[in-house]
């Protein structure tokens, strides 16, 4: 299967062309993406802080989660639609972009973390719903969620400064992982391409 052909086909569609070439398409889609990410992270962060036992500890966990997770999903839906629109506009550049691939991996890990929590950890919620200190599995889920969503934000911002996406920087400036963080970059470079 020739991925390049598939993605250049996506890039040639009307909606992709509109996002890429119209005057306001990309700025509006991009701004909506940032708003929805702030909603996703802001709401999940409050739930995560309850899980790790740092905040909202006087409220039952299910009240905090019940209040907020529908807003997290709303934000995620808007982020997904706007993300797909931006992806389609430059699909051939995105699919080979390291930061983009890492961002998708981080979103996938956040999804797995959420599924493990929802399918396994939450089964015993009636035993710890009102406890200040939650079980270790719940605390881990909270820490992992915060870490992964922060990574998603960092990697997402990094896409704009990598090859092919220099909206703000000159086109010849690219982030070379070999040199980015000096020795640390050289250590991880072989593993992240």
């Amino acid at each position, binding site marked *: 299967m020739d991925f390049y052909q598939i993605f250049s086909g996506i890039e040639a569609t009307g909606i992709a062309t509109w996002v890429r070439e119209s005057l306001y398409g990309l700025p509006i889609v991009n701004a909506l993406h940032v708003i929805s990410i702030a909603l996703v992270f802001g709401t999940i962060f409050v739930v995560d802080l309850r899980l790790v036992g740092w905040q909202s500890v006087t409220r039952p966990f299910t009240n905090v989660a019940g209040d907020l997770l529908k807003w997290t999903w709303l934000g995620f839906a808007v982020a997904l639609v706007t993300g797909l629109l931006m992806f389609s506009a430059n699909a051939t550049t995105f699919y080979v972009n390291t930061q983009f691939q890492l961002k998708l991996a981080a979103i996938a890990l956040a999804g797995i973390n959420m599924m493990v929590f929802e399918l396994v950890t939450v089964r015993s919620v009636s035993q710890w719903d009102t406890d200040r200190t939650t079980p270790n599995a719940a605390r881990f889920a909270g820490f992992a969620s915060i870490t992964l969503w922060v990574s998603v934000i960092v990697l997402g911002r990094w896409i*704009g400064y990598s090859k092919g996406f220099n909206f703000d920087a000159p086109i010849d400036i690219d982030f070379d992982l070999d040199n980015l963080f000096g020795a640390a970059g050289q250590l991880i470079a072989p593993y992240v391409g």
Partner: protein
Amino acid sequence: MREFANWLAGTGLNQTIAGNLWMIPTIQSVHIVAIGVLVGALFMVDMRILGVVGKDQSLVVTSRRFAPWIWGAIAVLLTSGVLLIFGEPERELLSFSFWAKMILVVIGTAIVAAFQIHLRGREAEWETTLVAAPLTKVFAIASIGIWIAIMVLGRFIAWDAQIWGALSPQL
């Protein structure tokens, strides 16, 4: 303003931020994470006023819980924002989006501060009557709208001339 931007571009801090390629995206990432924290905390308080979330707890408890997060996030946003101005003075200072954003930041922060000051000493009153007051809800909705506009304008800095045309000082 152009002279001021030029002066900033000659400072040592500018050299450090502009000279290290990873610094701008890193500071921007911190800025976005902080905006997420602020949105989450403001969302809890504003939606509590509107009666959408957190109804099992009083507005006073909700406001007290999230006030440190709101002010902490604003402090991180201001610090990282100032660093971004030092790093890219022309991009920020010579843009319509930036100054429109700054006006809204002042208004948005003033609403947060005014609300918290007004809440002080009126805790009981807030629970019984004021939460239902239409004006309070108008301010809560305005607060949400203003911070959404702040995020939009923040992102629009990247395309200032393209979006605002003759309004942009970059043209």
